[in-house]
């Protein structure tokens, strides 16, 4: 198990449809992502707890891409991962944020 | 301990218990009157027939002997593992036994469980664990699964499980662990007849296992989490 933390700045304040949203399940090759609104001085904080150790650089790249698509401010993203591929991670991130902003879980 | 020796120690004033294979039932004499006894021996695997038979005896006691206390002395290695038992719906037989014990409780019978030898997973769930209060002898074995088998399934090295089991009661076999977690109320030692009489005199109340687990620092979350769900806002 490994815990990775990332922080992004320069995002835009958002107007979420719900205070938090969840996507995915903690199962093999999958992950769950919890997105929550939280005052973080404009930051977007990401914490990843993963069963697959040693993939920090890949997480960094996937999350950089995500933040480029969704530059969010004052949002906390919490992830429990069981070795999901970058494609699955990106898909779940988009699902979670769409539910968060659009209101459909 | 051997079941016959156990019965002699529990009921020095006398008992009439019939043994049939791994099953036994009958009555024992206490200072407060007769107690119904139902049990199994030789680490019986509980299959459909045995679950059905125990359930039938519980119903017979409820029908014929209102309010007579029931002492469950179930020695079990767990549910019988077979395709036939699954084909016949063994979980339904286990549930039936559990419902019969509940009917007895609701009809005013005290139900006491005593683990005197072995209590394992499904066999334990459907019997002594359904008692108002469950006790054990210190030499009893209580478990879901031994550590080597647990290691194979969870893929966690057995050495790691052994190390952690020194710190936490949460997964390793052992009557002490079940005591700390509240499922076993007390260990009976010395004068077993006195232990039984004390148990019979104890007040019947709600399922107190979570409270005991919390008080004994063996199960810290069960009680508080259940309370939060029961009383919390949706």
């Amino acid at each position, binding site marked *: 198990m490994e815990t990775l933390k990332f922080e992004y700045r320069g995002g835009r304040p958002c107007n979420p449809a719900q205070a938090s949203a969840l996507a995915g399940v903690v199962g093999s090759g999958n992950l769950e992502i919890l997105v929550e609104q939280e005052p973080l001085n404009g930051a977007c904080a990401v914490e990843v707890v993963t069963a697959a150790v040693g993939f920090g650089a890949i997480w960094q790249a996937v999350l950089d891409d995500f933040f480029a698509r969704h530059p969010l401010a004052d949002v906390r993203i919490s992830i429990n991962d069981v070795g999901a591929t970058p494609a699955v991670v990106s898909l779940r991130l988009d699902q979670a944020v769409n539910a968060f902003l659009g209101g459909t879980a | 301990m051997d079941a016959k020796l156990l019965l002699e120690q529990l009921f020095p004033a006398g008992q009439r218990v019939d043994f049939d294979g791994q099953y036994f039932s009958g009555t024992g004499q206490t200072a407060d009157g007769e107690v119904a006894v139902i049990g199994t021996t030789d680490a019986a695997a509980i299959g459909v027939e045995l679950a059905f038979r125990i359930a039938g005896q519980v119903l017979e006691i409820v029908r014929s002997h209102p309010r007579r206390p029931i002492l469950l002395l179930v020695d079990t290695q767990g549910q019988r593992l077979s395709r036939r038992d699954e084909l016949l719906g063994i*979980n*339904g037989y286990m549930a039936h036994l559990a*419902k019969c014990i509940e009917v007895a409780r609701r009809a005013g019978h005290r139900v006491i469980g005593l683990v005197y030898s072995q209590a394992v997973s499904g066999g334990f769930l459907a019997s002594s664990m359904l008692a108002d209060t469950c006790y054990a002898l210190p030499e009893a074995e209580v478990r879901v699964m031994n550590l080597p088998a647990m290691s194979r399934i969870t893929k966690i090295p057995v050495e790691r499980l052994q190390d952690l089991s020194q710190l936490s009661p949460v997964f390793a076999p052992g009557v002490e662990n079940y005591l700390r977690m509240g499922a076993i109320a007390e260990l009976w030692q010395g004068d077993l007849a006195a232990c039984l009489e004390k148990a019979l005199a104890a007040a019947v109340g709600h399922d107190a296992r979570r409270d005991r687990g919390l008080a004994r620092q063996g199960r810290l979350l069960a009680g508080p989490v*259940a309370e939060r769900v029961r009383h919390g806002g949706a």
Partner: protein
Amino acid sequence: MTQSYYEASARERLAAVLDPSSFQEILPPSARVTSPHLRQLDTPAAFDDGIIVGEGRLDGQPVLAAAQEGGFMGGAVGEVHGAKLVGLLERALDTRPTAVLLLVESGGVRLHEANAGLIAVSEVMRAVLAVRGAGIPVIVLDGGQFGCFGGMGIVARLCDTVIISEEGRLGLSGPEVIETTCGVEEFDSRDRALVWRTVGGKHRTLLGEAGELVADATAAFRAAAIRALALTPDLSLEALEREHAALGQRIERFGDCHDAVDIWRALGIEAPERLPLLEAADFNTITAGKRA
């Protein structure tokens, strides 16, 4: 388009079975009530510990509902998971909903916290019976990928009814457990046809272990759950004596049967070997009046 109950997640099942947007979760993922024991064993935890509990409405009636997520550790019961279920059942004693719905999907006790899980299942059993004793029906929906086994298989049969799809298996020891312990000649867990006709929904319905067989569709489960709202719990001595007689007859009539097909034939069903191929509606028509 019909939504498969089997393929849906626990959250999707709750959303589809209950009245639209009626579900309010208690201790949602943001509360982060997770299992400390998994972390201790270097195993990832889930924010909801694999079970969603809360309040909602079904056909306009207030209900409490829980759904186990099989994708997380096979829906296995640990300390927190079990406590959420116990708390929900006890909440029913206070709020007196029309029913409690259990969308089960579980392999039984979670081995990483086996003792806590076993005790929790036992507390769930006591709590289910307390809720039924208070006159509130407890309705089980079983149609997930992991079926319902171990202690949860016992819990399911403590309830008022089990609504099941053919895919939703129900038993005590899973086929894999029996094969591992007793050998492949006792139970070949890779023989899917054997597994389904032994522990699958059709056989469970014919035995009388499940109350209704439905198609693998969330709408079918919802419709059956609405019908089940009318059930009245009966934990009387007479009810248990009737059940006892039925279970005794089952051993007498079918105790020597080698296979589920033998039991179906003994029930008077013509060409029983075709049953696994039938859609739920045809199955229900053909087997009407022939269930044990």
